[in-house]
């Protein structure tokens, strides 16, 4: 089986074909480990001697992105050496680094041979980590918001809207309290987006801030859309009685 495989690999004219073949051939390294060391080295020799190696695009972020993109076939095509070395990963939609323990001996081997030979150096993107970190946080935040939006419908709340809320208060034995008021401000911050609700309780103006995507908000109903000219309606604090006569 192994000799057969290696023969097949040699018969590939271009490296491109080879890597396509490898990405299809999931069980490559399970077979490889049974082969004698000399036979095992051959495919890698072949790889390193090939000058047709394309640039490996697995930067620190690319790998991260690819792990959650649903269909990343072009990504896989771009990964040459890495994809080969991480063959245990084996899914075509997957090119994340640092996953499996198993093929690492081979991964390091390939990497090392490539560092020895400048022609085959895999493309490593050396980026500022703070930017990478920021990007990760942005992705996580976006996903979290999308997840909440998929679970329950959240109307687009803007300043000037008069809304009715049903809020569960865990601290108060999980009672659901209902409140009605005017949105006087909205603070956009991804998952931590909040809005400020102003209402009258026993003749006294009360402002409360709610996270828009909180699971404790059970229902938001927009009753009225007042036309306002400002983003923050703090002037309502001074003319409370007029604006909130409902």
């Amino acid at each position, binding site marked *: 089986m192994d000799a057969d495989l290696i023969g097949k690999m040699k018969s590939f004219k271009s490296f491109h074909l080879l890597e396509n073949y490898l990405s299809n051939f999931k069980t490559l390294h399970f077979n*490889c480990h049974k082969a004698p060391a000399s036979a095992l080295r051959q495919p890698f020799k072949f790889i390193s001697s090939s000058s047709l190696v394309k640039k490996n695009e697995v930067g620190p972020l690319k790998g991260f992105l690819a792990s*959650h993109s649903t269909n990343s076939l072009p990504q896989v095509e771009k990964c040459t050496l890495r994809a080969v070395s991480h063959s245990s990963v084996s899914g075509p939609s997957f090119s994340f680094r640092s996953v499996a323990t198993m093929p690492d001996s081979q991964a*390091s081997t390939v990497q090392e041979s490539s560092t020895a030979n400048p022609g085959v150096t895999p493309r490593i993107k050396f980026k500022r980590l*703070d930017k990478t970190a920021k990007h990760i946080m942005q992705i996580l935040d976006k996903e979290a918001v999308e997840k909440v939006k998929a679970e329950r419908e959240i109307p687009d709340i803007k300043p000037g809207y008069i809304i009715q809320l049903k809020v569960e208060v865990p601290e108060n*034995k999980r009672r659901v309290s209902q409140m009605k008021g005017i949105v006087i401000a909205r603070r956009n911050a991804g*998952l931590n987006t909040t809005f400020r609700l102003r209402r009258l309780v026993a003749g006294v103006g009360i402002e409360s801030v709610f996270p828009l995507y909180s699971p404790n908000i059970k229902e938001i109903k927009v009753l009225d859309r007042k036309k306002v000219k400002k983003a923050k309606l703090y002037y309502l604090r001074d003319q409370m009685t007029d604006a909130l006569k409902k």
Partner: protein
Amino acid sequence: MSAASRGLISRFRLLSIGPRTYSFRSFSAEVAALDDESDGAAVEEGSRVMKPFSRRTGVIAVKCGMTALWDKWGARIPISVLWVDDNIVSQVKTMEKEGITALQIGAGQKKEKHLTKPEMGHFRAQGVPLKRKLREFPVTEDALLPVGTSITVRHFVPGQYVDVTGITRGKGFQGGMKRWGFKGMPASHGVSITHRHIGSTGQRDAPGKVFKGKKMPGRMGGKQSTVKNVWVYKVDPQRNLMYVKGQVPGAEGNFVFVKDAAYMVPSRDKYKNKKYEDISLEKKLMVYKKFDLSLLPFPTHFSSPYEDPSLLEPLVADIGETDPFMPAD
């Protein structure tokens, strides 16, 4: 030349070990010897049993930033996101050779042009890919791992506690109130100009000097600090992210070092007259805060080659079935 040949040998060695075998060779000085294969006969498949004094390796993570999540009871949890980027064992230190049992872990990746020649030589001699950050974690002998073992985020289990070490943000030259938490002076009652001063720094003639170590204004931050007993809320194996509760030192994009929350306590009465250093590691007790030891993967988590890591679901800590907000009967 010699460096190259060593690299070659280690390459052979790595190849000779089949990808499915975890060979815990004797980590002797002749790590690069070719006849290691026979040594590797004592092959263990994966995990071992963790003893009370066992200490696992830590990981190098990148602090990504903070966010907040709601748990299933609707309580908001402040979260720091840590990214365990491509961690592998880059060197094994043994008693015979280095006089310490420790694992050097490398994280990230780097180009050759960013490294000095000695650093290159180290990576080549070990036969590991070039790493951005290296850090040594002392471990007990039973927690040693072979060079090249990759350590994923599943090394940690949601619900456990970790210690996170990092370099705090530099805050520049700060006064005594911010730097040491001094109270300052009253705002009124005749106090003039000296509202944020540190006040007296000592006595009179008797010592006639300011004692060394007096807390005074000066440079603040930019120092290593450890936050202990940080609760792991969530672990995302697909992306190698871990979500821990609360703050960890450092700015976004800084490296932090995460290890099991534990401290060593020598049994007091038995070793009363001995120095702490003289007590062997086995005699010291490892204390893990509020967490079942047997749940930790030991020495680390080995991912199965048959599972597709892109399909792994995030693991969330079990926070119990009793509603924390409902009053207990």
